């Protein structure tokens, strides 16, 4: 793929022999970003690792407690509930989202008129999806007197408070995530453009059906892109916070049905003066994401096909 090719070129040995002077200028220009990384990102990350081994109530100095926070995780039922909610959310919403993205990318790839417009229109939600405004809108749409119920009412179906019912609240957040399929769609679209048309022509001559063409040509040649999107969206979904925070008013309710792991650790840290445990939870979440990503990379050996 072209992006990977770029990366390889950047790592080419020639880059190392550039003059020292140029490096200085580069570091100078990078320094604002670098300062930001150290102070705002790397510093707090390192501190949170240390805080994970303490009892820290935000007001008094942290007290070292060893692995207490880890043993506490084992018996913390709300943590288990939140992990269940998060994993369900990831496993349901990411495949649905990618399927939508791929489906629409293939539609748009067939030389539609006004492609630029549709591409932008479908991409827009992924820019807005994790914003507070959209979450507030979602609350309205799926509320007891919201748009969804009004539409259902027209066709004579009795609606319900989708967001305030523990049976359906998480589904509304899944729908919200699926709706933001624009970002992976644009990447799919770029990937589809890279598949030589002659493959399809040859297949058509051989009498392959559209489905066979999809299965035998599109999927294998697109698999690095599918893999890339899968890894990215899984990580992204694990880190979802704003949607659940706004839609549930910060509670993860009703009855913990939308309690994402991120939301739970936020509650522990900022609502319950329990920042030590919250820091440990943040690292637990990081470890879980790392495991999911590692499994993904391991599985990639069996289905991702690199053409070059």
């Amino acid at each position, binding site marked *: 793929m072209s992006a990977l090719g770029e990366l390889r070129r950047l790592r080419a040995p020639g880059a190392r022999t550039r003059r020292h002077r140029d490096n200085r200028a580069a570091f100078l220009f990078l320094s604002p970003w670098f300062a930001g990384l150290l102070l705002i990102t790397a510093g707090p990350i390192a501190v949170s690792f240390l805080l994970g081994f303490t009892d820290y109530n935000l007001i008094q100095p942290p007290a070292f407690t060893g692995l207490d926070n880890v043993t506490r995780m084992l018996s913390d039922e709300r943590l288990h509930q939140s992990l269940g909610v998060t994993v369900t959310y990831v496993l349901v919403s990411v495949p649905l989202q990618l399927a939508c993205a791929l489906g629409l990318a293939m539609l748009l790839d067939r030389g539609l008129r006004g492609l630029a417009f549709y591409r932008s229109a479908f991409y827009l939600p992924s820019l807005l999806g994790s914003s507070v405004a959209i979450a507030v809108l979602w609350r309205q749409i799926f509320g007891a007197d919201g748009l969804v119920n009004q539409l259902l009412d027209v066709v004579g179906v009795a609606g319900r*408070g989708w967001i*305030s019912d523990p049976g359906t609240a998480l589904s509304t957040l899944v729908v919200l995530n699926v709706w933001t399929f624009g970002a992976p769609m644009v990447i799919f679209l770029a990937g589809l453009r890279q598949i030589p048309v002659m493959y399809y022509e040859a297949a058509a001559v051989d009498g392959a059906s559209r489905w066979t063409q999809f299965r035998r040509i599109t999927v294998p040649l697109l698999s690095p892109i599918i893999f890339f999107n899968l890894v990215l969206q899984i990580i992204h979904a694990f880190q979802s916070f704003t949607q659940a925070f706004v839609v549930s008013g910060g509670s993860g*309710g009703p*009855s913990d049905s939308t309690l994402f792991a991120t939301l739970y650790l936020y509650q522990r840290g*900022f609502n*319950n*003066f329990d920042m030590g445990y919250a820091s440990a939870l943040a690292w637990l979440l990081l470890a879980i994401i790392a495991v999911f990503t590692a499994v993904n990379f391991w599985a990639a050996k069996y289905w991702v096909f690199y053409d070059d």
Partner: protein
Amino acid sequence: MPPHLTRRAALVALVSLTAGTALAACGGGSDASQDLSDEPVTLRFTWWGSDARHERTRRVIELFQKAHPTITVTGEFKEWNGYWDSLATTVAANDAPDVIQMDELYLASYAERGALLDLGTARRHLTTADFDADALATGAIDGKQYGLPVGLAIYSVVVNTDLLTRYGVALPDDATWTWEDLTRLGAQVSRAGGGTVTGVQAWGFDTGGLTLWARQAGAALYDDAGDVAIPPQVLAGYWQYLADLTRQGIAPPASVTVERASGALDQSGLATNASAFATWWNTQLTSLATASGSQLRLLRFPGEAQSATPGAYYKPSMFWSVSARSRHPAEAALFVDFLANNEEAAAILQTDRGVPANTKIRNAIAGQLSPTDRAALEYLDSVPVTAPPRVTPKGASGVEAILKRYTEQVLFGRTTPEQAAKDFIAELQREIDAA
């Protein structure tokens, strides 16, 4: 640009930054009984509330600054949820506002961790002579005055008398009515309301209703030591009553109740004229009347006459607290004195933060009140109350989130009231033990 110059410039910047921080740190540690500063002082004052409260508070700040030209007060205001998140972070960052509007739920959590000033050390600038000893005691922990009560409120039943008249339902006599009466009258309204209006707006999402229920049974949510003390069967009875109201259609379906409970006051069943009876703090009457446009009336809680001791109590609506790390504790105390004791300020603030706990101020503004505010004040003076419950213990500030969660589970039938009671008590006790 030659690189060595940049490095030196960076070093200079770094050193001056560090020095600045160190100097700023030296500024702290003055005490609350010292003279007021001759130099200009800036105080930061934070509160939660509605737009109307922000406007009133802004006017009081202006009044204070006119009286004390060397002191500038900058206001930081938020809505309830964001307020506590941001207070926790600013306190953690050693950047707490000087004057803090504090709630009963959080008072012990902050005070017992040393974040609040003992206002007793600020007597020189802050008098509390016009406060009842009982009222003052609600803001004291181990004899130290960490919060000065601002207003008082009583948890009450608010009824929409327009709806009762429309459906031909009699107004109950609140001196004698029982929980069965509420069920019966609510059912009459729901029947007549034909699905659009229900008799009762279910509660169970704040501690007021639960505390009152427990006190009618001669129990309390916490014992004096600050441990959870409510008997499981009392708690189960509470949830059973709420679940029955929902099941019988006297209260709206669970999902509607949950949605309304998470919304603002003006989206509630009472404010939208969708329920006839609801539970609120008596001081919310004016906001509710404005939102609903209907005639509303305050009633005593059902069952008060039948229980051995009445459950009603004065809840301090909020407190004024001063940060223990304030660099201007004397000026902060002076500002709190102005908020609590100045009649001109009281004329602006009125009952927005509750019926004033300062008895002199309460009498002074009685004549200036709107009819609904006067009704709230008369209610406060007429209802028989008993000694207030213990302040929410350290670690239990999240009690309402826990309560809300179990109420939701009961209303949706995901657990039984008995099981919920057992789990609620265990979970709340764990939070207290861990703090």
